[in-house]
């Protein structure tokens, strides 16, 4: 039982890490600020979600599981807000969204 | 030692801290009175501490009731009390001076009034923190606690420099802040290395455990560099002339008189109590050489200045050299105590004299509206007290009897002759001659009699009087040398020398 949980948790964390990797690649390779934001927030939120899910499986008590979950929710909220602020500032600053030609 | 007896020790630290807090709350109007009250309280407590130490020997005080390696101790020996006394005297004089300084500024015109009121409030809070940190530094027996006092000292001193908002004052204040922060960080790195190597922070414990090794040598180097930078030892004095000359005069007096001495004291304390005389003869020789170079370089530069306050600032570069000469002379040989006490005595007399001279200069600049040395003709007629104060301080710098500077030089010169390093004696005496030159650089034009009509000038009587009184005190400091030297003997690191020397 313990080892099944352990494997599942490891797998989930690995999936999360893959999303982080993808998000990082997107941050480096995408053409403009809006695309990069997309890569960052979406991939990282999902990635962190998987990592959190994996860690919850390892959590000793319900309370710590709840705390870990809370971290994810807070990151979701602040990440979304930060992305919104950056995008707004970029639009106001006159940066035009990139269009594929 | 009774309950009250040892508790005097915390008064010079706690009292100004309380005043600073109160001064921040009550605002500018009552701050000067609080400051003066505090000054008298500190004088009283320092006198009580001094008497206790003279009668009963060194005091160790366990803060929070915890013993040394775990807790923080305060420790008062002769040297610490000597520095406390120096700070109390100069501090009280500057406090009195500041009351007059900020009041007369307010009278000047409506425009500056509100501004200087703010500045006066900030001055008192900063100065009270500075005073608490100085007293705390002299009394602390804990390496990390010394760091905290150093930082309070640096921040409040830099804050005092930037009270003057001219561009030059701001940039020299900025540079001073960098220097003082870097010095503190170098010190802290040294403390961290000592903790890594020896596992303690209490100075006495560190001294017992000291061994020469990679970590302790590095710690010595970092601490020495940091403190030399903060004290302004040649060639690390680059920040000093600007910082001292661009600040408002009460701040210049405090910086040149006291703040530089505190970092010197810290080096002295660690050098002899922790590092066992610098872990060998080599480092002391280096510091002595730099000190000798500072004496000559600073004095030559001072002679070449065209501005009164810059002249004084360069004179400080030179006078700090005298302090560092002691590191090459103070060994366990028979002349060790003479050299050590000579250097420390010089710190005292220079603190009083230089503070008094900056205070005089401040009054003069305030009155004549500039500090151009070439246009000082007739100042002696207009402001006899200020010029007299300046002259008395100048005589102390030259080291003529009966000044405190004479006692200090006498001790240093005799130690250098006894040790066979006669070239140090030559430098010391040459420094005195050069000091005469730069002091005359101001006195010559100032004493010229000129015919000028009565000019409307800001009232500076209060300033002149306080400056003169302090200079007068430093002038006769040699008369007190017997009790002061007796005080310095208590708990000195040269106790073994003294036993040999005095049967």
């Amino acid at each position, binding site marked *: 039982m313990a080892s099944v949980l352990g494997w599942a948790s490891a797998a989930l964390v690995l999936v999360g890490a893959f999303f982080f990797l993808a998000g990082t690649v997107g941050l480096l390779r995408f053409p403009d600020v809006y695309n990069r934001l997309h890569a960052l927030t979406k991939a990282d939120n999902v990635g962190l979600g998987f990592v959190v899910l994996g860690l919850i499986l390892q959590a000793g008590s319900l309370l710590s599981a709840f705390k870990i979950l809370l971290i994810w929710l807070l990151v979701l*909220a602040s990440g979304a807000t930060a992305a*919104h602020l950056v995008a707004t500032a970029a639009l106001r600053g006159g940066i035009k969204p990139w269009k594929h030609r | 030692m009774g309950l009250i007896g040892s508790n005097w020790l915390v008064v010079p630290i706690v009292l100004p801290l309380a005043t*600073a807090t109160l001064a*921040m709350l009550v605002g500018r109007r009552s701050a000067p009175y609080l400051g003066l009250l505090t000054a008298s309280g500190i004088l009283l407590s320092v006198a009580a501490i001094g008497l206790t130490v003279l009668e009963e020997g060194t005091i160790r005080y*366990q803060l*929070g009731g915890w013993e040394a390696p775990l807790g923080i101790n305060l420790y008062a020996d002769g040297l610490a009390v000597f520095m406390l006394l120096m700070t109390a005297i100069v501090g009280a004089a500057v406090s009195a001076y500041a009351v007059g300084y900020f009041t007369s500024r307010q009278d000047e015109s409506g425009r500056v009034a509100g501004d200087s009121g703010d500045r006066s409030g900030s001055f008192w809070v900063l100065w009270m923190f500075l005073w608490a940190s100085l007293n705390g530094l002299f009394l602390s027996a804990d390496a990390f606690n010394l760091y905290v006092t150093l930082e309070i000292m640096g921040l409040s001193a830099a804050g005092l420099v930037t009270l003057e908002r001219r561009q030059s004052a701001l940039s020299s204040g900025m540079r001073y802040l960098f220097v003082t922060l870097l010095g503190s960080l170098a010190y802290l790195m040294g403390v961290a290395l000592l903790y890594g190597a020896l596992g303690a922070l209490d100075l006495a414990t560190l001294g017992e455990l000291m061994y020469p090794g990679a970590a302790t040598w590095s710690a010595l180097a970092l601490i020495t560099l940091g403190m030399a930078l903060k004290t302004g030892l040649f060639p690390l004095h680059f920040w000093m002339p600007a910082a001292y000359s661009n600040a408002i005069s009460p701040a210049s007096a405090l910086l040149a008189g006291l703040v530089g001495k505190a970092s010197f004291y810290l080096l002295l304390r660690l050098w002899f109590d922790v590092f066992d005389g610098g872990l060998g003869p080599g480092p002391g020789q280096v510091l002595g050489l730099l000190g000798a170079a500072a004496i000559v370089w600073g004095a030559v530069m001072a002679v070449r200045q065209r501005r009164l306050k810059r002249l004084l600032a360069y004179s400080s570069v030179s006078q700090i050299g005298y302090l560092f000469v002691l590191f090459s002379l103070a060994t366990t040989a028979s002349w060790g105590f003479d050299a050590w006490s000579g250097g420390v005595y010089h710190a005292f007399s220079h603190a009083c004299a230089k503070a008094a001279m900056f205070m005089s200069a401040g009054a003069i600049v305030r009155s004549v509206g500039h500090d151009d040395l070439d246009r000082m003709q007739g100042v002696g007629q207009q402001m006899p007290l200020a010029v007299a104060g300046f002259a008395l301080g100048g005589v102390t710098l030259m080291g003529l009897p009966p000044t405190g500077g004479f006692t200090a030089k006498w001790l240093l010169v005799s130690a250098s002759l006894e040790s066979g390093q006669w070239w140090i004696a030559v430098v010391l005496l040459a420094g005195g001659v050069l000091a005469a030159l730069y002091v005359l650089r101001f006195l010559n034009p100032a004493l010229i009699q000129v015919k000028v009509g009565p000019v409307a000038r800001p009232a500076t009587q209060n300033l002149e009087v306080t400056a003169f009184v302090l200079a007068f005190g430093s002038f006769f400091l040699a008369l007190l040398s017997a009790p002061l030297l007796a005080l310095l003997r208590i708990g000195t690191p040269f106790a073994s020398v003294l036993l040999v020397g005095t049967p």
Partner: protein
Amino acid sequence: MLSLFFDAVLALALPLLAWRVLTTRDLYRAVILFIAFGLLVALSWARLDAPDIALAEAAIGAGLTGALFLNTVGGLVGRKRSPSRESDESREVAERREAIQSSPGEPVDEVMRPWWVRLALTVPILALGLALGWAVVSFPEPAIDLAQQASDNLEASGVDHGVTAVLLNFRSYDTLLEIGVLLLAVVAVWSLDLGRVRGGQAALSKGLPVLHGLVRLLTPIMIIVGGYLLWAGAKQPGGAFQAGAVLGALGVLLVLSGLVRPPLSDGSGLRIGLAVGFAVFLGIGTAVMLATGELLNYPPASTYGLIIIIELFLTVSIALTLAALFVTAPPRKEQGSKEHSEEKGEES
């Protein structure tokens, strides 16, 4: 094995990151890298079993300090400033500033000492690095074990957490002076009488409902977290500093998002709030002298209670100070009194 590799990478990354911070041309980028540096330092402290200071570093060292830097860089370069100070500066200065600001955009910095200075510096600096490296590698087993002594005396300290015991009992004098430093810093910053550079932020954030929503959501959470950290400090990592840092960050957030107007330096409520921690600490430390004969030596029976009281007030003052260092707008002479009356109510 894996953890050793992780430590090695982290330890290697820190100096490299520091190097990047100091060599990146763009100052904004340098500050962002600095924040990353602070977070990595916090991570390495977490690795070194120091959760207390990891928390403090993440909140104060990286977070608040980083925000301070960003704010200053923003104030220095790029933005045209309000002409509040124009009256009392010479024309020449204004022109010089114009010349500098004529190329807004990236705040860049390339001013360095000449190459020969840099070359000459490398020798002593490398020597220092080698000496220090040798020193830390060859640390002997120390003769004194303060860790043991601290844990032996933990019983008598009134609290169950080592770091809190050191901070508020064994070495409480250091902590007292350190709170003094905070107070001193605020006074020193105020004495500079800075212009109102940050006024723009509140206006900027108008019409950003998302941000306001987030801040409204975070406010109760951060208050709970701060209270929890304070309460937990007696037994486990946490305490007045961490709690104060969290609450201070909340203050900064509230002001920057425009939900609360920046407090004025001469508001007496603010002044009392800033000083109360230091005053209570000093007062209790002095008062116990009557009972036990030494400064800061708490009577054994009431040690825990006194420490909690001190920590409570410290938290208030630390939070206010950190926020004040960041957002206090000193009053301009002319308009001071008017705004003062206006904002009296915000103070609570």
